[in-house]
């Protein structure tokens, strides 16, 4: 980030009217609203073309991959941009920000909307909108749209928010029939009689005696008694053991449930021999139920985690600032020999990727084999090894310690920069007045550093408040504690707790609950930041300068 300044030829600007020097007509002619509208229209057009392109493309080339839609959309976008630019030439500069807008919409706006929506739904692994294969239940009787199933409990309606009412379902007609084969040659089975009508023959099961293996293959086509296999078996099949899978399926919606009878939205055709039915894992709007669940358990998760989260962020800032200022003041002393060497060495933690260094620290902190305990015991500071990552308070200290190591270089560099901006004359004046080093620090350095430090500590606080990397990699939220839950443990902060809820509990797919937590975190973060700004007066000072 610290690139040297590049000398450039700057064209002379007539300072009497700076605006005249800017290409005014090209930037503002259309106005913000009109420009965004045109860009939005181009994007919408590209989106529609992308979708329609795939749908139409699949009619021509079956199985066209979904990503081809991107190509269609991109082509359409280029044409739309070209067309718009021909009519409204002033829009050209806006095209430079178009990629940024697209990325903003895709990677920020869309996930935020999705999170808000999911927070009010019961989306989870067992309610993910997919067809639920385990609920496939045999059908014992059909009467128009009324279908009687063998075991209603197997449909497991209890896990859906409304039971099975208004839920999509797939009705199957499935049969495995043994067929009589008279001859086989070159991938073609000659049957004694044609297959029963009505259902599609999907698959053939052949026994290959030479391999002792049951071989399945698809069917290329059926012509009367001739059945052509999609793939010829590598060895001759046993003609006595040939079965054909006949299947068909229909999509319906369950309107109501009456005992073991499901009422569908439309009757099944008479010729359709229904054998089984499976429901979909429907999910949908459940209001604020996710939020009430979280708040009901707040005593053991939200509140203690929030308390540690705030103290973690505050303590980190205090400790890092104190050490940063201390080291910076020491290194700022021009009489110190090798100070550039020290500075360089102290920057090292910043230069290494923290994904790696945090895990190295995890090794250092190992109870029996870690270097830290070995050193502590070598110097008789402690006689028993400290269980750094296994005891709540030790783990919390370890988190703060490692975060100090990680955050110090940034703090130190920032303070060094601010120190060099303090005029030397002030120190000279202090010296003449006979101030001690201590008095000079509190009378000169500290007040002048304050303005420079406030924005740094504020951003540091915001960053550490959601410092997922550190917690996840160093302690993984652990150790488990008796006041918490499986997802809210000794060093879990709000964001790691949300991660645990969303991705590690309920089979790893409690997206609804996880989204609700992240919205709560957002609310809390905003509140904390507002308090922060109010207390430090940061917003006010920014405005004054």
């Amino acid at each position, binding site marked *: 980030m610290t690139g040297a300044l590049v000398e450039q030829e700057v064209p002379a600007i007539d300072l009497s009217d700076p605006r005249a020097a800017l290409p005014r007509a090209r930037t503002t002619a259309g106005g913000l609203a009109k420009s965004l509208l045109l860009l939005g229209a181009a994007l919408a057009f590209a989106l529609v073309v992308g979708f329609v392109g795939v749908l139409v*493309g699949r009619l021509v*080339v079956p*199985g*066209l*991959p*979904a*990503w*081809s839609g991107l*190509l269609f959309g991109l*082509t359409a976008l280029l044409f739309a941009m070209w067309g718009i630019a021909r009519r409204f030439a002033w829009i050209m500069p806006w095209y430079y920000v178009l990629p940024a807008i697209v990325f903003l919409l895709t990677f920020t706006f869309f996930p935020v909307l999705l999170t808000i929506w999911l927070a009010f739904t019961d989306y989870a*692994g*067992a309610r*993910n909108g*997919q*067809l*639920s*294969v*385990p*609920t*496939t239940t045999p059908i014992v009787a059909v009467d128009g749209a009324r279908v009687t199933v063998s075991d209603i409990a*197997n449909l*497991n309606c209890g896990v859906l928010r409304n039971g099975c009412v208004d839920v999509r379902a797939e009705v199957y007609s499935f049969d495995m029939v043994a067929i009589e084969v008279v001859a086989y040659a070159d991938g073609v089975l000659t049957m004694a009689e044609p297959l029963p009508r009505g259902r599609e023959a999907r*698959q053939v*099961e052949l026994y290959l005696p030479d*391999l*002792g*293996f*049951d*071989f*399945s*293959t*698809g069917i290329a086509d059926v012509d009367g008694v001739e059945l052509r296999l*999609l*793939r010829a078996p*590598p060895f001759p099949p046993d003609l006595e053991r040939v079965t054909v*899978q006949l299947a068909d399926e229909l999509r319906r919606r369950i309107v109501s449930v009456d005992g073991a009878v499901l009422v569908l939205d439309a009757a099944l055709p008479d010729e359709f021999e229904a054998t089984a039915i499976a429901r*979909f*894992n429907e999910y949908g709007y459940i209001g604020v139920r996710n939020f009430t669940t979280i708040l009901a358990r707040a005593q053991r998760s939200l509140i203690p985690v929030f308390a540690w989260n705030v103290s973690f962020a505050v303590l980190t800032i205090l400790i890092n600032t104190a050490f940063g200022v201390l080291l910076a003041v020491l290194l700022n002393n021009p009489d110190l020999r090798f100070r550039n060497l020290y500075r360089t060495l102290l920057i090292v933690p910043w230069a290494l990727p923290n994904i790696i260094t945090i895990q190295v620290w995890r090794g250092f902190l*190992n*109870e*029996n084999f870690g270097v830290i305990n070995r050193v502590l015991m070598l110097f008789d500071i402690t006689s028993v090894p400290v*269980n750094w990552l*296994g*005891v709540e308070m030790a783990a919390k200290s370890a988190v703060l310690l490692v975060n100090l190591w990680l955050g110090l270089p940034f703090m130190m560099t920032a303070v060094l920069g601010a120190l060099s901006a303090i005029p030397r004359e002030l120190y000279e004046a202090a010296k003449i007045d006979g101030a001690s080093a201590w008095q000079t620090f509190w009378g000169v350095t500290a007040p002048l550093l304050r303005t420079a430090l406030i924005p740094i500590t504020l951003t540091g606080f915001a960053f550490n408040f959601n410092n997922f990397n550190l917690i996840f990699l160093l302690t993984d939220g*652990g*150790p*488990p*504690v*008796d006041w918490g*839950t*499986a*997802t809210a*443990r000794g060093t879990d902060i709000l964001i790691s707790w949300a991660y645990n809820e969303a*991705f*590690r*509990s*309920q*089979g*790893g*797919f409690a997206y609804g609950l996880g989204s609700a937590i992240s919205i709560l975190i957002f609310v809390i973060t905003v509140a904390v930041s507002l308090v922060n700004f109010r207390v430090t007066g940061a917003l006010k000072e920014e405005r004054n300068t």
Partner: protein
Amino acid sequence: MTLKKTMIALLAVASLGLAFGQGLTVWTTFGDQTLQWLEGEAASFTSAFGVPVNVVKLDLGELPATVLRAAPQGEAADLFVGVPHDQIGNMADGGVLADMSVYATPGYLADLSEQARLAYTFAGKLFGLPMFVEGPALIVNTDLVPAAPATYEEMIALAQELTTADTFGFMFDAPNFYFAYVYLRTFGGYVFGRDASGSLVATDVGLASEGAVRGAQALKDLRFAYDLIPSGVNYDVANGLFVDGSLAMIYNGPWAISQYRDAGVSVAVLPVPPLADGTEFGGFMGVQGVLMNQFSTNKVDAANFAKWITRADAQISMAELSGRIPASEAALRAVGDDPIIQGFGLALLNAEPMPNIPQMGQVWGPAGNALSVILETAGSDVSAALQRAVAEILGN
């Protein structure tokens, strides 16, 4: 003119993507020797049927979640090999597993052990073709333990005797619920109760029952009363010590056997000796096999490969290689004389298949936490920790 050219180029690119859809992709959790075994089977399948198979290794920790996320998008493999049966409920509920009852031939089913079939059955459907049964047993270093102890008490005494300056008596990954369950269950605890018809009842969690508390206390005694398992011992530490030859007894599964053999440790496998009152030890056992992606576009070939690697011959070679107990009874008869397989077989006679209902997914976290808290300090309240875990599992 430009438009036409562009369209042609686009279609050419798109059809290129289609050409990839021919072979099979298999995701597996197997590693080392078992991975080589699978790749060998894939090669023989390709030469017999002309279908290329691409084997990709994934961690067990990420496979189920990745499948749940990627399969509906059409981005998951056709088959998943080596997924323990306790993960099936979650994956099946998420709609990503195909019902394999249609592909299981009568011959295969007749030869399948009852334990394996039940473990891979969820909601009345067979959601995979089982390959082998595995679970932990007591593995001893015969150089350090010449004669197997007859009772658990003798075993503990022996372990204490063998815990010296440079050897350890008995260790295992005690804070891990998968291993620790043998204590909880032997003393009377259970994960889920069963109703009259034998189905698991998700609301009846027996991990804080009187028996479970006594079991957890016995586990805690290993650390604080007998000084056998110091704090900080996890799977890697215990396993590493056994590989080095400095640990006499470990409670571990067949996956580790090849590693011990390679390290030159002479091992014997037996059940954990019974308590003085005759109660036999029995913990979890797992069944692994092949699952099929419900969204696979090549289910027929996938079914062939699944049947290929679960045929009896393949199971025999797998068992000989890795000490796993074949799910096929014919294969088991063929390898039954192997002392390692015999030892695991005896140990698993009393074992319970891990519950495969999706609610099991909510057990691991709280149960593991409770064990960590219990093993943390000598003064920990065993009963309270287990009760909190149960409350959490039940969602209170």
